[in-house]
């Protein structure tokens, strides 16, 4: 088991030197088939079917406890679930291994932790022991990746001293190193100030235009959903409704869950 994992890690290290920022071709298709998660006797989410393409942003909205984060964790393979995920390259009609990038809502780094952004980043993408010495090659690569989101100046700062927006840009850069096929973002704008949010929107646009990946975003921010989501999913244990944001907004279930008026973003 250890052996296999090491091999994967080596592949990762190799791949971070690839420049894979071809813009989306729309020919990579990810099918999420019938995902159901049960904990003991309770069903948390059931029969989730999704079909997404690279270059598209799919937003998941829903009340608290609707199972949004559970769905993300099931896609990551972190929790037991039935059903599965298929990843197909329509160019040559072959199945491929899906590489997933993930931007978490928070990280477990306490105040006063001596972990620089380089340490945090290199820990995930490289095997060069971060406690021993700085690896120049990895350092340059990390800086380059951070620069995509205008975060290159943060590289020597301690991760615990970053603002919410700064940390998020670092996490975004980690998630797309190496470039994944599917990028998952869990409530990316919670705890971020106005400037940080504008920058975040810009970054999502950059990703959409320049990278060959599909995105699934959990969001409470309807302004973001309206502007950037190609497809919106209203989730409550199962998919209540899907379509464009305008379509979702008109439906009864949306009004039931969110009280008819959008609370945020306007």
């Amino acid at each position, binding site marked *: *088991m*250890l052996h296999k*994992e090491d091999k*994967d*890690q080596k592949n*990762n290290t190799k791949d971070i030197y690839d420049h894979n920022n071809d813009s989306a071709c729309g020919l990579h298709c990810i099918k999420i088939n019938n995902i159901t998660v049960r904990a003991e006797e309770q069903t948390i989410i059931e029969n989730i079917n999704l079909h997404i393409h690279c270059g598209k942003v799919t937003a998941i909205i829903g009340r608290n406890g609707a199972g949004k984060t559970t769905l*993300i*964790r099931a896609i*990551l*393979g*972190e929790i037991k679930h039935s059903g599965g995920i298929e990843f197909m390259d329509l160019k040559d009609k072959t199945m491929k291994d899906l590489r*997933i*990038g*993930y931007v*978490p809502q*928070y*990280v*477990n*780094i*306490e*105040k*006063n*932790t*001596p*972990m*620089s952004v*380089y*340490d*945090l980043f*290199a*820990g*995930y*993408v*490289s*095997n*060069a*022991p*971060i*406690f*021993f*010495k*700085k690896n120049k090659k990895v350092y340059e690569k990390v800086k380059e990746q951070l620069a995509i989101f205008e975060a290159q100046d943060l590289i*020597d700062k*301690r991760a615990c001293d970053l603002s919410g927006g700064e940390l998020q840009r670092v*996490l975004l850069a*980690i*998630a797309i190193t190496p470039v*994944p096929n599917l990028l*998952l973002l869990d409530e990316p704008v919670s705890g971020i100030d106005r400037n940080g949010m504008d920058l975040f929107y810009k970054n999502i646009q950059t990703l959409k235009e320049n990278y060959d990946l599909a995105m699934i975003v959990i969001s409470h921010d309807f302004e973001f959903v309206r502007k950037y989501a190609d497809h919106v999913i209203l989730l409550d244990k199962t998919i209540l409704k899907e379509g464009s944001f305008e379509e979702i907004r008109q439906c009864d279930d949306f009004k039931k869950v969110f009280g008819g008026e959008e609370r945020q973003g306007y």
Partner: protein
Amino acid sequence: MDTLYEIMEKLLPVSWVEYNFMKNALLAIIIITPLFGILGTLVINNRMAFFSDALGHSALTGIAAGTLFGISDINISMILYAVLFALLLNYINRRKTLSTDTVISVFSSFSMAIGLMILSRGGNFSRYSSLLVGDILSITTGEIGLLCIIFVITILYWFRCFNRLNSVGVNASLARSKNINSRLMEDSFSILIAIIVMLSIKWVGILIINALLILPAAAGRNIASNMREYHLFSVLIAVFSGISGLILSYYLGTATGPTVVIIASIIFFITFFLRPSKDK
């Protein structure tokens, strides 16, 4: 071993080097304190201080289990029990039915009570009370060999696994997305801590072993700003406290473990006031 003793006698022109037990103690400290310094960094980062404390306390139960099953070498019974105990705690913790603190508290108290009950049968507990404070002068040449082996294993493990261990501590889901096996990392790290704590407990003592694991790293973290400084300071502080504590305890006639801990604590307070001003 004899050549090593001779070298030490030549290098150190002080009276206490004449005693073989002091030389053994010094060797043991030089081998084991860097390990405490290294492991402590992640024990703190990944918030495992309470976990390692509970592991230390499980030593008594390990010995008790050993007496029940007729294992004469207490090192073996302690290590076996501690490893099982650590894996059990991890397993229950992953089920997330109770908070981590509660799980550790409940199982640690339960296990320790069983150990005390068995060992105190027939009023014999005083035989084991030396374990509470520890006695470094009792360390044998064979045990130093064991420490050397575990030293090499730990260093190799650290070079191979530190990045992944750290990543799991920061965010397990994120680690998962990078194909890191959190469970394997958590369990292997817990086993390593269990082994090192059990091999050191006889001379450091159950009551303060956790302090030795936590204090150097806690002090190092006050003044470090990245992982490299963190490790460097933590190891230096651990080794310095260990050696100076041994020497001081020799002249003061005190137990070594507590003396080491007091020095490490003083260093912690000094570094606390030396922190970069923006944190104050």
